């Protein structure tokens, strides 16, 4: 009964009080009792509760999530990372999912069941209303940047970020000139088919169905795109889909002389475990600052800079003081990745450490 009450109360609280005030009240009333009473609100972690599960196609479900107060307002096209300890081994599995819809207080992820996928199978099997999940704040650079003419090119479940940006235009006053190209195998497998067909009247959405094999796709795609969008070179393109599809489109765009600076591609490259030796790290470093939800890339040539200097060069501010590892003001915790220099267990001193792996996640 208490759980039912909480299920009704949580959406109400987040709607009425808002995340900002909820954070203020919850963080200042955190104690053993409140944490035990409601671990969804009285927590230090970003969590979300499943409030609705919808069957989109035979193998695709949409999960509507109500995130708690630690969640930052997302932009259409961004994704979240979902972390679940699937096997109860203490080493949780993490996967990224694009936010397919963004509502006032909720966000949705649309998950296609992948026969070999750990997380998608788990979600399809166990995900139900009332369940609480560990999520990250929204991330990603695949977001609309006020261009006037745009074209979405997507395939399969790659439609989700495109659809999310597309849907956000509905409520916008100055709508850009949008074209939407979507490739799916069969109508039954088409995610958001109904929603897309409703808006199809204005001719901006093309859904192409094909059961072609991978080889045939390559020969089939170019002619289709150039016919469908004669002004393709004037449009900013948002591309998202399975790797082979993306590669085909990329080489095609290159062939027709499309300016690739106008292209946004969504990558879901999994975090690579780094085995590079700590002393000889020379590559580019991607840094994620979890608390601020900022991602930035340190150029290979800047590898001799401290983490603090490199962040500043990217316009990212760390709390800091002495810049020489003495005062401890910049001290923060390393979530994953490796650094060189001054560290203490998981704590690192950005002003006196150097990145030593391709991917760094800092608290």
């Amino acid at each position, binding site marked *: 009964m208490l759980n039912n009450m909480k299920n009704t109360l949580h959406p109400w609280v987040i709607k009425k009080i808002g995340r900002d005030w909820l954070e203020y009240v919850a963080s200042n009333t955190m104690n053993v009792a409140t944490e035990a009473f409601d671990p969804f609100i009285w927590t230090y972690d970003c969590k979300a509760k499943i409030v609705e599960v919808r069957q989109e196609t035979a193998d695709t479900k949409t999960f509507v999530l109500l995130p708690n107060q630690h969640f930052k307002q997302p932009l259409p096209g961004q994704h979240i990372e979902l972390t679940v300890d699937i096997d109860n081994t203490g080493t949780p599995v993490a996967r990224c999912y694009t936010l397919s819809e963004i509502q006032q207080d909720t966000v949705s992820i649309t998950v296609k069941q992948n026969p070999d996928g750990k997380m998608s199978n788990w979600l399809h099997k166990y995900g139900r209303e009332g369940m609480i999940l560990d999520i990250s704040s929204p991330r990603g650079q695949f977001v609309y940047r006020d261009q006037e003419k745009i074209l979405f090119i997507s395939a399969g479940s790659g439609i989700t970020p495109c659809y999310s940006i597309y849907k956000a235009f509905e409520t916008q006053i100055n709508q850009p000139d949008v074209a939407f190209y979507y490739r799916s195998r069969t109508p039954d497998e088409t995610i958001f088919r109904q929603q897309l067909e409703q808006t199809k009247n204005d001719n901006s959405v093309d859904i192409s169905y094909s059961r072609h094999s991978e080889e045939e796709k390559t020969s089939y795609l170019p002619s289709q795109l150039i016919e469908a969008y004669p002004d393709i070179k004037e449009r900013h393109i948002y591309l998202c889909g399975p790797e082979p599809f993306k590669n085909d489109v990329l080489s095609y765009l290159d062939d027709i002389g499309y300016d690739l600076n106008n292209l946004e591609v969504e990558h879901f490259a999994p975090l690579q475990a780094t085995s590079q030796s700590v002393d000889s790290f020379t590559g580019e470093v991607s840094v994620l600052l979890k*608390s601020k939800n900022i991602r930035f890339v340190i150029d290979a040539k800047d590898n001799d800079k401290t983490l603090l200097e490199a962040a500043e060069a990217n316009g990212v501010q760390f*709390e800091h*003081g002495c810049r020489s590892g003495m005062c401890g*003001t910049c*001290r923060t*915790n390393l979530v994953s990745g490796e650094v060189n220099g001054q560290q*203490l267990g998981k704590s690192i001193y950005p002003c006196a450490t150097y990145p030593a792996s391709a991917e760094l996640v800092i608290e």
Partner: protein
Amino acid sequence: MSHSSTSSEQNYDEIHQAFEDIKTKHRDDLGEKDIRYIKKIRRYSRIFEVIGRGLIWIMPGPLALIGVPFLFLHRNLEAIEIGHNVLHGQYDSFEGIPQFHSKKFRWKAPIDEAAWRQEHNGIHHVHTNVYEKDPDLNHGFLRTNAQVPHNKWHYFQVPIYLFFVYPAMLYNFNAQNLGANDKFRERRFPLGNKGYATFENTEELTEDAAKKRHQRAVWRVWAKEYGVFPLLALLTGSGFFKVFLANMLADVLNNYWIALTIQATHLTEPLQPEDALKSKGKWYVSQLDSSVNFKGTRKQSILWGHLNYQVEHHLYPDLPSHRYPDIAIEVQEVCKKYNLPYKTNKNWWQAISNYIGLLWRFSFKRSASVPLEPSFLEKEASNAK
């Protein structure tokens, strides 16, 4: 008196290494002991809170005052031994205690944590006693050395601080950390902020955002102390004003206690050279030269948040405070070996009276003609010539 070779660069490197060795030793030793300590202090704080609020609520009329010392103990432990030390990140490296991680911790004090960390850890602890850099040299508008231009407010600085500022000392910190004090000096002082450290808006807060942070930090304390608990008392048939006044008394005592503690831990003379930071050895020496300890037992030290080990705290601000008494012995050995200043007042009272004497001296204009006392680093440098 002066050690002839102290000023050589090589010697400063040695000094640096000696202090680093102490740091490394204690860092390597961090563990369960520290987690147990901070949890124990929190447990005591909770117990004192229950006893204090319980007595204030149950006891009739003036007898409710019996609860005030307990409530004071709770608020004091939370404010300094827990709050101040946790916000230095002393417990950040321990997993499983997110409530004591500096960026997650919420203070039961009317001070915004993020602004405090930036001002206190990032500026005061780095530029200690540096003219126009260290905001703790003035805590508002105090004139604590002859270099600060004198104006008519300074004639009254002793009574103003003793009677009006110290009883609400903690409420002054947001003004210092979020910019309100700068505006006051700009408006009231002929030379504005000349001679004072000003707010470095590192978070690039808008004026509204800074104000909101300031107010939220205050209201969380007021809502609890002067809203929720008095109202609970009213609803259960106990007196609203009895609880309100008792809580206010505990609040004032807590503010005064902390004000006197922090004011007694820095000698505001000599001022330190700004470039001490360029050499780590010199930075350590400038921290030694600007901090002063006062003696107390282990239990007393907890009530002072171990700020009476100010020297050790300024050398190693992010080592857990309960280690300072042990570290002090090692620091004193290094100071003896290299003939470095290690300053101590023999008790709290002497520390306070020294400080108030100094405030009195600099409230008068004539002190402007007194030559500045040079810092240890400057003396060494001129001896070397």
